[in-house]
Structures are given as structure tokens and as C-alpha cells.
């Protein structure tokens, strides 16, 4: 237990293209998240907006603590600052509009520029494909199993009126498999999209949270497994460092962080009611479920095929449609939105795909072809 809670969340409208500036979206996200929490800007003594670090100045709420990390890592950093008495209430916000106009492609903010990968035509989808292809080779995982996962997430977005791709389905695994190849084994519908939007989150102490407007969502535990800088080195499934643990390999990134988080929270994977997993590419869901201990390493393909992950199933995943369908605004609402969705699930306020009685949610942020995975467990206040 960190002794901290998420008390405010807000997402602006999300769209392929918004006729807005990142700055106006950012301010809307801050105001929206504070309003959701029932707090005023005067109550804030911590600000975390790493890619828009002028926010603190613009809000004129300094001197204040400032965060440097993003998404889940940003919330864990804020919780640590609150727990160590550096501040009491942190607003985290990010927004993106008008910057990435290369709309035909996935996540244009992630292009590798290193001379050691760019010279051979690696790009985002190809980096993730290297990891997926290795898993297929070692364990017999199939393109159809990946497509089934993509169809579940895209259908979650299909029914979500707030999703960028609302009403664009429903999709079957065959639809995914018949979309054009981007980087084998990934088809177009195995990949995240690109869109615009803003997101805000407010974190404070659990003691203060209990006097606020919303049912507190407790930050139970978190962790971060990283292998190195994004898009500089290739993600190599079997790459190992100096760590002795069996699962301390690049292909299982997240396994150590996940086990630590479950240990701190005193929970097991079977205690999780809903997983808001970061869905950059379809295989990444299979990989994360294995790494986090939901199924044995290597068995994720058949495991996800057994009708476990959809609405009403034993472990609903990425219930708003995720980056494949809900929204994928880079820098970094995309990372924060797994948290806001998990909070909605635990408040019981999702307008679509609400998991009945959800008490524990797990969310993840990952990327750069599985070079990192951040993990966070959230729970209702007991």
C-alpha cells in the first residue's frame, strides 16, 4: 500500500484529429480532473506534466513539487512524493494535438533513429514483430491467437461511444487476419492507431481522499521493468542481463515488476477483476499476460484463445478499446488512459463493459518492442 489514492480523472474528447492545440487540451484535462475530484487549483502542490513542463508556470501554482515521469510511472512517482511528505496533492496531465500528422501510420512519435537499427529499416511495428515472431518460433503461438485478442479489444471500442473507432466493428479474428500486412506477423488491425486528445489524473493521500467527492481508488502497488532506451536497440526476446531470475529476459519484461507489485499488495493474479493492459500490438497482450503470471510462460496463445478476455469473461482486458480503438494520443495521454479506465472500472462508472463488482484492477504501460513494462495495481478502498 502506498497510502495514496486516485481521486480525479478526466479525458477530453478523443479523435483522429481535433481542431485544438495541445495547450488548450492540457488545461481542459487539468480543470476536468480537479473538478472530478472536487478540488480547486489552489489545493494542488504538485504538478506532473513531463512533456509540457511549462504547465506549472502557466497554472501559477508554484512553488510546487514536480514530477519527471509519465503514465503509471508518473502516478507511482507522485505517490512516492506524497508518501514521503514532499507534497499532498498532485495533478498529472498530458495532451497532444496537431503534432503528428503522419496519419497513415502507427505511433509516429516512436520512430527509431539509432544508426544501429534505422539502417536496416526497423520501425515500430517491425520491432514489436521481432518479439512476436520469436515467441511463435519457440512456443507455437499463432497469428490467429493474436487476431482473437485484437478483435476483443477492437470490439470493446466498437461499443464505446467515447472511442475514436466507435461503431467501426464488430470485428472477427478473420477480419484482423484479412487486413493488410504491416510487419509480419502484424496486420493492420493488430496494431495501435494514432489519434489526439488529453488526459488528467489527480492523486492525493488516502486520508484526504476519503473526504473528497469520489470513491477513492487506492494505489496498491506498482513496479517498473526496463531494459534500456526506447527504439535505440532491438528488442531481443532472449536477451539477458546480469539478473539471475529465470524470467529476467527481455521477452518477459514485466515479470519481475509484476511479482514485486503482487507481493507488496498481498495479491495474486487470480485476485484481479479487470486488466487494463497497454495494447500497442496484439501479441503484446499475450506476452504481458504470461509475464505477469496470469498463465505459464509460453502458454499464452492457447490461453487467450479460450474465451477468457471478453466482456463478462473471467478476465476482461482493455475494456474501453485501448490504443487500438479508444484512443492513442502520443506524449502521453496514451499511457495515462489505462489508469483512468481502471479507475472508472473500480468506481463502477463505466458506461460500457463495466465489470460488475470490480475491486482490483491491474494496468500496464509498455512499449518500444517490449523494452519496458510498467505495472500498477489499483483497488477499491476497503
Amino acid at each position: 500500500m502506498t497510502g495514496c489514492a486516485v481521486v480525479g480523472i478526466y479525458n477530453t474528447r478523443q479523435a483522429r484529429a481535433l481542431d485544438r492545440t495541445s495547450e488548450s487540451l492540457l488545461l481542459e484535462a487539468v480543470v476536468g480532473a480537479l473538478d472530478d475530484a472536487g478540488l480547486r487549483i489552489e489545493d494542488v502542490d504538485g504538478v506532473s506534466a513531463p512533456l509540457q513542463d511549462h504547465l506549472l508556470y502557466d497554472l501559477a501554482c508554484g512553488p510546487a513539487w514536480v514530477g519527471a515521469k509519465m503514465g503509471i510511472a508518473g502516478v507511482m512517482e507522485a505517490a512516492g512524493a506524497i508518501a514521503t511528505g514532499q507534497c499532498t496533492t498532485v495533478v498529472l496531465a498530458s495532451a497532444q494535438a496537431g503534432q503528428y500528422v503522419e496519419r497513415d501510420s502507427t505511433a509516429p512519435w516512436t520512430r527509431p533513429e539509432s544508426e544501429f537499427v534505422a539502417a536496416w529499416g526497423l520501425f515500430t511495428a517491425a520491432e514489436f514483430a521481432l518479439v512476436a515472431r520469436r515467441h511463435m518460433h519457440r512456443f507455437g503461438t499463432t497469428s490467429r491467437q493474436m487476431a482473437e485478442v485484437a478483435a476483443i479489444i477492437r470490439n470493446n471500442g466498437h461499443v464505446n461511444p467515447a472511442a475514436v473507432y466507435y461503431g467501426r466493428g464488430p470485428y472477427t479474428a478473420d477480419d484482423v487476419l484479412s487486413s493488410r500486412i504491416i510487419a509480419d506477423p502484424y496486420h493492420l488491425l493488430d496494431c495501435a492507431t494514432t489519434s489526439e486528445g488529453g488526459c488528467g489524473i489527480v492523486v492525493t493521500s488516502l486520508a484526504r481522499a476519503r473526504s473528497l467527492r469520489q470513491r477513492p481508488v487506492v494505489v496498491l502497488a506498482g513496479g517498473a521493468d526496463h531494459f534500456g532506451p526506447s527504439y535505440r536497440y532491438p528488442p531481443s526476446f532472449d536477451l539477458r542481463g546480469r539478473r539471475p531470475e529465470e524470467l529476467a529476459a527481455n521477452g518477459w519484461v514485466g515479470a519481475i515488476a509484476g511479482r514485486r507489485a503482487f507481493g507488496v499488495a498481498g495479491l495474486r493474479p487470480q485476485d484481479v477483476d479487470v486488466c487494463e493492459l497497454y495494447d500497442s500490438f496484439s501479441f503484446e497482450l499475450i506476452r504481458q499476460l504470461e509475464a505477469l503470471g496470469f498463465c505459464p510462460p509460453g502458454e499464452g496463445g492457447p490461453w487467450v484463445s479460450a474465451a477468457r478476455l471478453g466482456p463478462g469473461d473471467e478476465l476482461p482486458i482493455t475494456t474501453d478499446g485501448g490504443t487500438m480503438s479508444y484512443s492513442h494520443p502520443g506524449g502521453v495521454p496514451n499511457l495515462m488512459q489505462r489508469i483512468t479506465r481502471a479507475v472508472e472500472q473500480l468506481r463502477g462508472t463505466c458506461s460500457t463493459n463495466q465489470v460488475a463488482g470490480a475491486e482490483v484492477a491491474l494496468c500496464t504501460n509498455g512499449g518500444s518492442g517490449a523494452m519496458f513494462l510498467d505495472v500498477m495495481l489499483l483497488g477499491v478502498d476497503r
Partner: protein
Amino acid sequence: VTPAFPVPYVAAIVDLDEGWQMVSNVVECPLDGVDIGLPVEVRFVAHKDITVPCFRPVRPVSAEEQG
């Protein structure tokens, strides 16, 4: 991806006999013939401004042979 890379092309991580791995492209091989574990050797490929090490099969591979 830039127009410098006409599709399809094969991006791969190559295990070197010296004990390292590197990213490269598999060249001079039909797409269906590329498989994990395929023995390859270096083949320097010249582009307009740069020459980069790529890898081709040690033995020529036909698509029929690999299925």
C-alpha cells in the same frame, strides 16, 4: 520506414559466431525461405551514401525447399 526500403524486406536479429547479436536484413533469399535458425553469412550492400552489412543464406534457399 522511408522509400529507401522497398517492401517487402526482412529485418532480423542475427546471432554472430563471435557471440554477439546485431540487427540486419536477410537478403538474396525468397521470403518463404527465411526461417529462425537459418545459417547466414555477411553480405555488404551498397546504398547511395552508405554501405551496410546484411546477411544472406550460407546455402542458396529456394521457396520450394523451405515450404
